[in-house]
């Protein structure tokens, strides 16, 4: 960029003087902050949840104006005593990149390339610069091979790399990163930190908000915040030049993760392997999973393959393993939210899924629990999903926690007792009458967990309950789990935190990496990172029968476990350091194999047309079909549809899938015609119902012409991407701009909604599942119960919608999108000769249709 040269004579990237910021006019999120960040510096901002570090990062990124003070960003005085200066903010923002915590909410389109180029488009880059920016930034984050993949179908770690690439492509001089690794697993975290090191080496100023000690030590300067004030501002003592070196660096004072890793590595090669010969009766096992296999629909590869897991009554087991190894799937199977393809599951004595006897037709799917068993299961199993705080819905914390017990039909005083008890276990009694939506993220998590605990489960399953929490909140959860363990509750906890697993669990189970597992089924960390070598390493030591080495207080139970999977700690340690290149190889294979990656349509003649021409021609053809009134015209239109089907190379199966929903409508229109059109000779008369030849003819005609319309639409939609459709609509609408209509904004709204539609659907499903596991179901119960169950789903769905909107609006600002700007367009639509030919064909078709009308 042209402004790049200025950075040399600007000593400071950001200067804050006496800056204060308040959200609620009652307390200061930032209280009199003065701060200088030099150009080219790497600064970390750290502190507990709610200390104001996130707010500070937004002020530094130029995304939010403070209430008081002076802010200078990259030489622009953006805020002073006169208030915010929009022009200065605009100018500063063009050179500031920002990446946030939630990778999903920063992705604006459904093709990686388009997402990366969104910022450069807003900045009005030339075409050549855009091409360069895409390839350079995707190269930097190691995702070149996924350029045309759909970013909503990749792992959280990969999504965050896409978001970083999107910021890089704008060539910022300063980049502000707000807990960008919080939702990633340790391996993905390392990839991201490596990328940052390389970026910093190019002279970019980095402002990184994090509370991970391992990341803090990469910074040149560490700013510690508490209660809206800076409490320490030090040059880092253990600055290491690159991330690789930092892994061997001595741990700094608050080091915990690093220490664990070192301890972890120093252990000699232990093999945890328990053999499967002793397959005991399932009675003493709280969870008995016997050789379960599960595949995602439409996926060839099993995410769980013949997997066994046995947890004794009262045992605490930590379940570890990489993203995509099937941990969340396992938790869902145990909670009867999914059912396995093979194998049996018994939980707390309830057959969740039982093997059927092999029949003549081979093995059949296991028998799922019936509704009575399901109900019993809901009572005995508590399931804390990932991000349980997203399920909160009630007006007060107490009501939310009472939801589960109330669904169990307990008396009011018993419910109150349960609520009290659950809240006090987590030390949050003081929040009882607050609205859950006014709490901090950490407090919300505790409330959501209390809501599950209040159901008094015998078996508790938790999916990364402490992820993304500060040390204080984490400790409360650990204390609660210790307490429940003492009371004899069986606990299965999925975690990425080795230390936590070690301190809590009787036993650590490590999921084998499935070679081609695609998605973990969870909402923001799906996908694979595992590599083939790692799997080999994890599975090479088969056949050994060593007693469990991870046991902290060796349990008396012999744990049966199939011999084909055994894991060494050494192998896991090794597994946590895959090279970026390595991941890419896998990604490529994934995008080829996965049925979910559908971003690019099969190339065909139809898909090569200019989408504007194609859509207009299609609409004309569709509406003209409604004028068809005789068989000759039907023939003409039928020819057109067959030609379109050939040009679109649509498969019969795809066509059936796209149109079968209209079958009922076809039948309905047919019946209406048969009984309402009474021309021609009477064939049958039965009471008031008269069947005539004219009626039957009309019925056939109307069904056919309606079907042609639907089929034509399905063919064309199959050959275009949602992006192409929105681009075309924007271009076609653009004349309306002269009438003061925000066509560019409306087109963006459309493409963003296409992007978020699947996200919202899957979130809604997750929330419905979570409330079902607390006994709230809209499918059964009295109307009042059903309405309550509906509210418990609808409210969190809206809360999620608004949360996405908030995050997305920040992401749009960070990418310099502004209403009414002159944007460049990466994807250029041009009318070529073949498009002219298409128009000619369309004209010919209309003439033929008119001519056929004369017959």
């Amino acid at each position, binding site marked *: 960029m042209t402004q790049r040269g200025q950075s040399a004579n600007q000593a400071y990237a950001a200067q804050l003087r006496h800056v204060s910021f308040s959200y609620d006019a*009652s*307390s200061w999120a930032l209280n009199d902050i003065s701060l200088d960040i030099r150009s080219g510096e790497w600064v970390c901002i750290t502190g507990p949840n709610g200390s104001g570090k996130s707010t500070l990062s937004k002020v530094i990124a130029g995304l939010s104006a403070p209430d008081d003070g002076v802010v200078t960003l990259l030489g622009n005085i953006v805020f002073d005593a006169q208030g915010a200066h929009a022009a200065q903010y605009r100018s500063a923002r063009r050179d500031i990149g920002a990446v946030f915590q939630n990778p999903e909410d920063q992705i604006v389109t459904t093709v990686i390339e388009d997402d990366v180029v969104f910022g450069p488009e807003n900045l009005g880059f030339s075409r050549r610069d855009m091409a360069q920016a895409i390839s350079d930034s995707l190269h930097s984050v190691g995702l070149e091979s996924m350029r045309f993949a759909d970013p909503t179908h990749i792992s959280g770690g990969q999504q965050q790399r896409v978001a970083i690439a999107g910021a890089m492509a704008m060539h910022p001089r300063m980049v502000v990163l707000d807990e960008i690794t919080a939702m990633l697993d340790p391996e993905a975290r390392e990839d991201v930190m490596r990328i940052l090191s390389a970026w910093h080496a190019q002279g970019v100023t980095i402002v990184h908000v994090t509370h991970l000690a391992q990341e803090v030590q990469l910074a040149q300067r560490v700013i510690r915040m508490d209660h809206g004030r800076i409490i320490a501002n030090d040059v880092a003592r253990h600055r290491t030049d690159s991330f690789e070196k930092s892994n061997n660096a001595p741990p700094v004072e608050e080091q915990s993760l690093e220490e664990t890793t070192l301890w972890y590595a120093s252990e000699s090669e232990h093999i945890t392997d328990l053999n499967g010969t002793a397959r005991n009766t399932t009675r003493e096992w709280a969870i008995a999973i016997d050789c379960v296999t599960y595949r995602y629909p439409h996926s060839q590869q099993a995410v769980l393959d013949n997997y066994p897991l046995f947890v004794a009554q009262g045992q605490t087991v930590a379940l570890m393993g990489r993203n995509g190894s099937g941990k969340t799937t396992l938790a869902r199977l145990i909670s009867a939210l999914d059912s396995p393809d093979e194998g049996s599951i018994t939980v707390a004595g309830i057959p969740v899924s039982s093997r059927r006897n092999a029949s003549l037709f081979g093995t059949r799917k296991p028998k799922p629990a019936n509704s009575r068993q399901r109900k019993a299961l809901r009572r005995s199993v508590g399931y804390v999903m990932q991000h349980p705080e997203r399920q909160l819905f009630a007006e007060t914390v107490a009501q939310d926690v009472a939801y589960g017990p109330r669904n169990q039909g307990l008396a009011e005083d018993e419910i109150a007792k349960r609520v009290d008890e659950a809240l006090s276990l987590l030390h949050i009694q003081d929040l009882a009458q607050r609205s859950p939506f006014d709490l901090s993220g950490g407090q919300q998590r505790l409330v959501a967990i209390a809501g599950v605990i209040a159901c008094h489960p015998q078996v508790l399953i938790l999916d990364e309950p402490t992820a993304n929490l500060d040390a204080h909140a984490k400790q409360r959860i650990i204390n609660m789990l210790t307490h429940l363990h003492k009371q004899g509750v069986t606990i299965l906890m999925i975690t990425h935190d080795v230390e936590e697993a070690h301190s809590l669990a009787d036993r650590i189970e490590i999921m084998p990496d499935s070679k081609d597992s695609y998605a973990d089924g969870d909402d923001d960390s799906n996908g694979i990172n595992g590599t083939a070598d790692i799997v080999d390493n994890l599975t090479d030591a088969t056949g050994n029968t060593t007693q469990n080495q991870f046991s902290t207080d060796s349990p008396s139970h012999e744990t049966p476990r199939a011999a084909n999977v055994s894991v060494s700690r050494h192998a896991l340690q090794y597994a946590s350091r895959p090279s970026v290149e390595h991941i890419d190889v896998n990604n490529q294979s994934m995008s080829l194999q996965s049925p979910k990656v559908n971003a690019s349509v099969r190339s065909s003649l139809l898909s090569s047309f200019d989408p504007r021409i194609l859509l207009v021609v299609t609409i004309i053809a569709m509406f003209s079909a409604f004028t068809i009134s005789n068989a000759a015209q039907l023939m003409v239109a039928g020819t057109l549809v067959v030609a379109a089907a050939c040009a679109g190379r649509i498969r019969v199966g795809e066509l059936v899938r796209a149109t079968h929903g209209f079958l009922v409508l076809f039948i309905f229109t047919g019946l209406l015609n048969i009984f309402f059109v009474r021309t021609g000779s009477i064939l049958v008369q039965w009471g008031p119902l008269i069947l005539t030849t004219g009626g039957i003819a009309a019925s056939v005609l109307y069904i056919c012409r309606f079907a042609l319309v639907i089929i034509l639409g399905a063919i064309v939609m199959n050959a275009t991407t949602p992006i192409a459709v929105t681009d075309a609509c924007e271009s076609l609408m653009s004349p309306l701009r002269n009438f003061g209509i925000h066509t560019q904004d409306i087109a963006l709204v459309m493409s963003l909604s296409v992007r978020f539609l699947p996200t919202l659907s899957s979130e809604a499903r997750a929330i419905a599942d979570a409330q079902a596991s607390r006994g709230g179901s809209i499918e059964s119960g009295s109307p009042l119960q059903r309405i309550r169950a509906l509210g418990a789903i609808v409210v969190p769905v809206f809360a999620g919608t608004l949360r996405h909107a908030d995050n997305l609006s920040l992401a749009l*600002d960070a990418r310099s999108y502004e209403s009414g700007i002159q944007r460049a367009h990466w994807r250029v639509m041009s009318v070529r000769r073949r498009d002219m030919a298409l128009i000619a064909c369309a004209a010919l078709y209309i003439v033929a249709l008119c001519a056929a009308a004369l017959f």
Partner: protein
Amino acid sequence: MGEFQHASNQGHTSPDISSDANESIPIDSASAQSVSSSENHNSMPKNRRRPSALQAHSTGVADSGRWSSRRIAVYALFVALTAATSFIEVPLLVPWLKYDPSGIIALVAGFAFGPSAAGIVSVLSFTPHLFTNPLGAIMGMAVGLALTVPAALIYQRFRTRKGALFALIIGSICAIVIAIAGNLVITPIYTGMTVAQVAALIVPVLLPFNVLKMFLHIVCTFIIYKPISDLLHR
């Protein structure tokens, strides 16, 4: 958190997505004037300027006449949610008359963010259907507009529980009129029936179906809007 605090003390919200400052207030005015803003004054550090209500943390980049990023994001998410629910179809009375709850979401959007949001959500959320079932999509848009825009306009004036009910009823009447008129036009295109034959079906079929549909819209919107408005104004 009640609307009183919100109305009198807007410093705590990020800039409203609408330029119209008084646009978003919860449905239930009878609830909660509990947390008065005067309490907040006391705990506020006294030596500094209070955050100004109008420019609350806005960088001024999206000034008048432009859409803010937040506005675009909120519209996009509501369009996505409405479109997602428009694929849910619950059979009513007979299998081919389907109820889809998307109107509820569009109504909520209209109540929360004003008539322009209602219009945009109603129209854009049906565009995915435009190329699969063009006449159905146009009908959906027309009925959606007739339902949500008048309702949002009325609710904008009368922000009470009664006002909301009035708004929903008027919106429903408009929607029923448009739905029946649309059927008079579209059914003869779909089938060989004459307009007169369709008209004969108004009282026995079209009217009961549409009344039932709107009744469900009203009940659901009424139940869910209160907690959602609390979410919007926390």
